[in-house]
């Protein structure tokens, strides 16, 4: 193609992309940059003073409570990610390798429906299921299996992990499914022909080729869960906050925007660093382009 033609096409493309790009710039980039700049400013009473400081970050990073909450958020997210991806992999495998092609989209539709329906009510229903007088406890006591309601299933980290794993399930299934669908089936036959058994073929052919999907699933579950606000509030009973709850308290209840901003920026940094490390660890799987 001639050079002027390229330029014209580029110009048309840029003109078309401008409205959504400018919108995202105004509603996403400008606010995030504002948070970033606030985090270096000083908090005055009821207002933000334009004085540069690292004080907010020093305060955030040296505060043992922040450290504890951040660590908890990370470990809850990590647990949710592991549980979600492990539970999701066999389902994605089943969809890709066993289900007949014409029924695949039906299965995908069934899996995505719960994801689109009332997040808040779904989270609350887990509280109903797991609660002191909840479905599990009242059924078990009613049947005479236990005398005292089980308490280890509510208001703790386990129940938060379970609820979040439920909420993000489709997010994990879809990328793995897409990666599995791309695998050339003749490679598996080749593996078998060369004398590998079923398990070894899975381990040495299917799994490595599915890894890009697994990596995508991990990131797509890990990143949003770390910022979840509702589950700690409802399932954790507000007593085991995660980082989102801490940010909200600093920003609104305590009205300390610079400190809240420093917290938010710290949280984003931690998520970005963890994600990049994870990508780096899996670099050899991602290099293969199919």
């Amino acid at each position, binding site marked *: 193609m001639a050079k002027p033609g390229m330029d014209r096409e580029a110009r048309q493309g840029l003109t078309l992309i401008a409205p959504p790009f400018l919108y995202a710039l105004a509603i*996403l980039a400008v*606010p995030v940059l504002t948070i970033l700049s606030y985090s270096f400013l000083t908090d005055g009473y009821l207002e933000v003073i334009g004085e540069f400081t690292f004080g907010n970050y020093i305060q955030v990073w040296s505060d043992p409570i922040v450290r504890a909450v951040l660590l908890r958020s990370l470990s809850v997210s990590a647990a949710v990610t592991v549980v979600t991806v492990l539970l999701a992999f066999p389902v994605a495998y089943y969809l890709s390798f066993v289900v007949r092609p014409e029924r695949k989209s039906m299965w995908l539709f069934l899996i995505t*429906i719960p994801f689109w329906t009332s997040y808040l009510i779904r989270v609350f229903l887990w509280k109903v299921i797991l609660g002191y007088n909840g479905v599990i406890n009242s059924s078990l006591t009613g049947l005479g299996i236990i005398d005292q309601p089980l308490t280890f299933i509510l208001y703790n980290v386990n129940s938060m992990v379970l609820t979040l794993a439920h909420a993000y399930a489709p997010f994990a299934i879809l990328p793995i499914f897409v990666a599995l669908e791309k695998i050339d089936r003749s490679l598996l036959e080749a593996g078998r022909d060369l004398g590998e058994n079923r398990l070894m073929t899975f381990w040495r052919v299917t799994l490595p080729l599915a890894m890009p999907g697994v990596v995508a699933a991990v990131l797509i579950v890990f990143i949003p869960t770390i910022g979840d606000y509702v589950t700690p509030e409802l399932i954790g009973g507000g007593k085991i906050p995660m980082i989102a709850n801490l940010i909200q308290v600093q920003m609104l209840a305590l009205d300390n925007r610079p400190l809240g*901003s420093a917290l938010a920026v710290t949280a984003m940094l931690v998520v970005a660093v963890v994600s990049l490390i994870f990508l780096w660890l899996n670099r050899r799987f991602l290099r293969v382009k199919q």
Partner: protein
Amino acid sequence: MSGRSNGLRAYALLYLLFLYAPILLLPLFAFNSGTIIAFPLQGFTTDWFTQMWGNPTLRRALSNSLIIAVSASVMATCLGVFAARATTRFTFPGKGGIMGFIMLPMVLPEIIVAMSLLVVLLGLGIELSILTVILGHTLICMPYGIAILSTAFSSLDRSLEEAAYDLGETKWGAFRLITLPLVMPGIISSLLISFTISLDEFIIAFFLAGTEPTLPTYIFSQLRFPKQIPSIMALGTVLVALSILLLGIGEYFRRRGIARMGGKNGGGFL
């Protein structure tokens, strides 16, 4: 079928049961006459639905939510059409980066979007209202709209448009007469998905709506009162039924769109 695939099938069915467990419980409690959400169930009643319908705050929340969802889905889909057209038809410098940035809200924790937008709005002295919620919802619905619309636009046959130019149509004319009707199923599907996302969205509505209730923030405020729970269950049942209906229609149009252009059905919404 071998034993292995039977095992996998059983597991997949169990997994579906796990996914649907909370939703299946919802109508049980909504029609249960007991005031406490627990087993055994008491008796059948539709009182909670009547009680729900007679609640003025709830009606206000409903009308707010509908206004927000309609506005956000229309705005997100319009912006999405631009992005989908640009990314499927043209190459331009910085394409990957720009598209990545526009799709970012899909994975960004909503609390970050909500908080940063809140800080800016308060800093500018803008009054919080349903308008500010619409701004936020458009942002988070846009990537989903783009994902659906890109599929619709990418299966478009370019020669159809060229034929229209050759027959003397203007650019706009060709877009309106050829492209738009062909991607219409994608547009409807994007509108429905965005509508469902916005209707269900809590965090952004919670922080940016000021004193105006939306359905999710209303539900959240009522969850701490045990007496209100049965009518919230009734509300939840209605919402879930509505979402499933809308998604079903959306899926129908998405598939019809793919079939119309002779494409292969690649999978779900994401």
